[in-house]
């Protein structure tokens, strides 16, 4: 997840990463990471969140630009088999949500023009 601010909205983090904030902490599938009170607001410090959750954080030199990377605690790309609500634009910029296809079988296919 990218951020141009050191402070991020928890809802943006949830949408981008598939983690969900619950009373017991930051959760994905069966995994829940307890959070200190300082991470319980709507907006949180990206460094503290990354450190607490064990996520990598990289900053661009000379710019207010951060990238927080995915989890690796389970040693696998997937922490759960529950698909995150992938949200991406189409050619016209209309946002599409993967969850809108609940009730159908979906083949999610990655390609590239290079």
């Amino acid at each position, binding site marked *: 997840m990218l951020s141009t601010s050191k402070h991020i909205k928890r809802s943006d983090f949830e949408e981008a990463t598939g983690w969900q904030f619950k009373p017991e902490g930051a959760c994905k599938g069966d995994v829940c990471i307890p959070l200190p009170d300082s991470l319980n607001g709507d907006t949180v410090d990206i460094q503290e969140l990354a450190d607490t959750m064990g996520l990598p954080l990289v900053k661009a030199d000379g710019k207010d*630009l951060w*990238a927080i990377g995915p989890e690796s605690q389970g040693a696998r790309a997937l922490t759960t088999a529950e698909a995150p609500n992938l949200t991406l634009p189409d050619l016209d910029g209309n946002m*599409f949500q993967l969850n809108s296809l609940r009730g159908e079988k979906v083949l999610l296919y990655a390609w590239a023009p290079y």
Partner: protein
Amino acid sequence: MWQALRTDLKPKGFELVTVGLDVLGAAGCREYIEAANPDHPSLIDEHHAMANLFGVINIPSSLWIDEQGMIVRPAEAAPAPPTDTPGFQPPTGDLPQRLLEMGAEAMKIQASPAEYHAALKDWVEKGAASAFAHTPEEVIERSRPRTADSALGHAHFELATELEKQGDHQAAITHFREAHRLVPDSWTFRRQAWSLEGGAEGPLKRFWQGPSDDNPEVWPYEGDWLTDVRKEGAENYSEPWKP
């Protein structure tokens, strides 16, 4: 080909979602999407969310997701549907030597289209009863390995794509290089970065994927498509399909 498959399977409660992985966004993907004229959702993924969220390391690849939103097969190579017409042919004729050699290597890449597509039809028919749909535990276990280094490399890659979008190409290269070092099994991370360099001009530019013939010393990466495929072996480019 995929559109025809989608038309075929749609009445059985199936949908295809294609995702173009390209930092150039709609500008990079448009001509291919418009040529395919899809009825299904066709999305643009500038920052390779598919890598972060699902462990996609190569293209083309696919995941299968059931009616409840559970992944039943994690990211794996997804060959195009088998057809009666000849598939990929080695390029011939008036092409630069590099592309002829890349074409010859590409011919050696292994794929199992018949097995993959028979399995897909079986799953669409039978759902969870299909032997090709896996349990949540198996799905997690079969997803890509991810170390702390690999996770860090994904952050570098995402940062690189944003720097590239902002026009800071040199800074992007620095982070693409870190991503390549930390996620050595990702072909998409390499191919994306290589596709942004000017090894050749014109329509071939993005497929050149390596140093230019005239000025090879300015190439900013350790590897390139032809060198890396030969080093790793074209037959190992895609992991063998397993039921």
